[in-house]
């Protein structure tokens, strides 16, 4: 019996041996989404901005954070403190600050855009800064907050995203190797229902409240006039801000999740481990910084194995070669012209649309005269009609 257990254990270990030797993740991405509009939902934007501030403090650059804010609380006319957003009644920390990059705002925050963002199905003209450029080495943090219900999350009072939509989007991300590990966090009512449908591997999911439970706000600021932060997010942030002091922190996700206190949160926060490679044990041992920070593995050049003089010699030789080549080109040998020709060929190969645009331009040129003629005829016709009608009415 024991033998067979050992054997199965061994079997399960074998295929992962390659994965174990895998180097750590190479980049961190964060997708931070608030889904609600209007002043009374101030706290949802404050939630997201707090997370934004934290991940930025822990080292994820703005270019790798996608911030989706459906409304602008800082500039809301009802805001008694214009240009600021606070997540605490003590108003010690202005979340809006002077260095904030919102990627999608206002009515750009839609279900469709969110799914496009995750699956990267955009028209060509969408800039890189608005895309999730993660790859198979990226750890991705997805944080969502808003108003939700059983297996849905409302976007902007007009539409909603279902748990299936989200699950399919993550499945497509996994299929295209757009994440290595993904941490999904959600703070809404009945939040845990949102990750029930996930089916792609290497996802850790956590939510603020179980089915038929509400997520509550933490406290209100009487001067701002509305609640400023949600309970679950408040306690997550409390952990992140007081325990994770610097980027060298070795605290794990297990520590973070153990800090949940149902008494304080007033709902039952949920966790999902079964999709993760290695299950709960492996998931709990992941560092908080693996998802909230941007710890880059660094390789110091090893001076011992490197033959510097040889390298310099090689470079100098290259420089010499380059100079010779330049001289050749100046003289204008046939060789160089051939090279440029092949370059053009490859260009044509790479951009087959080039000729198409040419055609289009030509067509447009040809149509100009016809269009003018049609316009002139129409103008004359209208004039004739006017003159004729005026003659008829006179008679």
């Amino acid at each position, binding site marked *: 019996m024991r033998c067979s257990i050992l054997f199965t254990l061994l079997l399960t270990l*074998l*295929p992962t*041996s*390659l994965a174990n*030797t*895998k*180097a750590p993740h*190479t*980049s961190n991405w964060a997708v931070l989404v608030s889904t609600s509009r209007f002043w009374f939902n101030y706290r949802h934007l404050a939630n997201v901005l707090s997370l934004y501030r934290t991940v930025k*403090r822990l*080292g994820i650059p703005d*270019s*790798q954070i996608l911030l989706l804010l459906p409304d602008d609380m800082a500039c809301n006319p009802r805001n008694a403190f214009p240009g600021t957003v606070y997540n605490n009644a003590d108003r010690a920390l202005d979340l809006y600050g002077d*260095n904030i990059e919102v990627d999608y705002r206002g009515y750009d925050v839609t*279900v469709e855009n969110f*799914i*496009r963002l995750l*699956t*990267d*199905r*955009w*028209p060509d003209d969408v800039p*890189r800064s608005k895309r999730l*450029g993660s*790859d198979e*080495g990226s750890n991705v943090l997805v944080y969502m907050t808003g108003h939700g219900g059983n297996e849905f999350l409302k976007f902007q009072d007009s539409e909603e995203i*279902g748990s299936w*939509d989200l699950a*399919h989007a993550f*499945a*497509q991300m996994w*299929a*295209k*190797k757009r994440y290595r590990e993904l941490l999904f966090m959600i703070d809404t009512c009945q939040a845990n229902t949102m990750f029930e449908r996930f089916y792609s591997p290497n996802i850790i999911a956590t939510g603020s409240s179980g089915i038929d439970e509400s997520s509550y706000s933490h406290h209100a600021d009487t001067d701002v006039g509305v609640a400023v932060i949600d309970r679950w997010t408040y306690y997550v942030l409390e952990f992140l801000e007081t325990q994770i002091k610097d*980027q*060298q922190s070795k605290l794990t996700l297990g520590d973070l999740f153990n800090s949940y206190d149902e008494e304080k949160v007033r709902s039952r926060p949920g966790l999902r481990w079964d999709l993760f490679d290695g299950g709960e044990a492996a998931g709990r041992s992941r560092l908080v910084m693996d998802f909230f920070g*941007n*710890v*880059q*593995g*660094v*390789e*110091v*050049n090893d*001076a011992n*194995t*490197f033959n510097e003089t*040889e*390298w*310099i*010699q*090689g*470079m100098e*030789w*290259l*420089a010499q*070669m*380059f100079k010779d080549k330049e001289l050749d080109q100046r003289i204008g040998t046939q060789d160089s012209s051939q090279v440029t020709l092949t370059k053009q060929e490859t260009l044509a*190969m*790479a951009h087959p649309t080039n000729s198409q645009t040419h055609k289009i331009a030509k067509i447009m040129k040809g149509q100009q005269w016809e269009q003018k003629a049609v316009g002139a005829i129409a103008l004359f016709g209208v004039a004739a009609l006017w003159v004729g009608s005026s003659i008829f009415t006179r008679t």
Partner: protein
Amino acid sequence: MEINPKQSASFVARTLQNKESKQPPAEDTATVKAKARVIFSFWSVVLFLGLPLWLWTTSIHRANLPVQEMLAWANGKACEVDVPLLFDIKAPKLTHSEAQDIIRGTSHAISSSKNFDIQRVQWQLSETLDGPRSRNSEEVALSIEFLEDSSSSAPIAQLLLQSKTLLVQYSPAMLRSNFGVYSVDIGKVIGEKLDEIFVEEQLSIEYLLASYSGCNKQLSRFSSTGNNADHFELSAKQARRRTRSLKYAPTYHISISLFTPGPVPTSWDIEAAISEYLLPLLESYSISNFTVDTQLQLYAPFSPSMRSPEFDWIKQQWIIREEDLGGFMDTANWPLSPNIGAGPTLNFILYVPDESLRPLVINGSGDHSWIIPQWGGVSILNHVGRIPTILSKEHLRPVLLTFSRQLLSLLGASDNPTSFPQQLQMLTRIHTLSLILSASSTLGSLAQLAESLATIPIPEEVALRVTRALDHLQMAQRNSHAGRFRSALEYARLAKAEAEKAFFEKDMVSQVYFPDEHKVAVYLPLLGPIGVTLLASLFKEIKKRRPTKSQ
């Protein structure tokens, strides 16, 4: 009016009696016919206009994808792509048969080593004393030149730094052996050298295939069966290299930045330095293009969250711990350009520390430069004495040499590059293979996606791109097989681009998932009232017709 309940009951009974006794007037045949026609026309509108319209507007267009072929590429066909090595022999002073002997000897030597199992080896004799010249159109992986040197006692094989040439020095005496076994020594020496040169490439290819999910991993040294320390170290090394290097792109953007916490240097002669020390490398790296920009930022201290360096009194230098290097850059405040252009960006940072913090070195190795995988490199300039306001070309020389080394390393070259042309050749082959694998895996994912998500629309554009990608893959495979790696690389790149575009087609966003109860809730208020009337009238009509038929 007050009605007696008894009275009203009798009134109702009377009216009922009346109804039974008094039938409505019989409809004339014209009205019956008209009625039937009305019902028929209503139903025909529903069936022939409404239903098709509904089906047409709610249907999802799904183009036919060559799913089988896509999956075939993803599940193994891509692994069969071979990247042969062609060795060219130039031996002006050897006869044809002597050269053949040496080839035989070398082949024997390398076949005993496990390294060349994965790559096919081909030979060609382009120059011999008497024999015919055979020349393939293929790209030569390495040319082996024989140099007669009668003074040498043992054959020497040496790789030339500047070209992909292996120089072999031999003396004529070595060609003749007493036992009828020719050129064993020379063959063995060449074989060992080839092994040394190409081991890196073999391992890379093997690792590439082993880490691709669709390939048969049993043959590989990285397979799970070879679980020993040796294997562990090998794959860790390869994994490090894979994660460090960027994926192949036809264009890279290089961003060189100088950050300093103080007011000096205010300028640097970077343009001249780049054209002198970096441009030759960029120009020679002929499989990609580069764009370069530079910036200089004053008053840019390193990240406040990093632990401050400590002073080592013995060595008289400031020390940063290696584990702190990850947080060295102040990503929130340093204006480091993210990916902007078409290709990926490589960042190179020159940090000039404050005078009070010099020399600043890394704990342990005492080095002052490091690589951030897939991102770029950092180098600290420990200038002795006051920093000049303008950093000259000479000041920048060591920095740019470091950058050029880091660049090559980030582009995927081996840890200890020996001959640049040979490295370039190797990278061409490896990139070709990895692009083919990547394109195949994308096509496989797309095929699986199309099969698993029934609600996702598939435009014709996607099918077109997939066909094109498959064609390009075929061409890449054919060219690679024939040893024309330049065109193979180009085709593989195109295949990957097409496959990616097909996968990321913007119209292929799946419709929002509707549970069935939602559908009922939407359709019922609309179709309920109409449907009831239509169905009721149809049943009535049928009922009416049945008895007449039986009569």
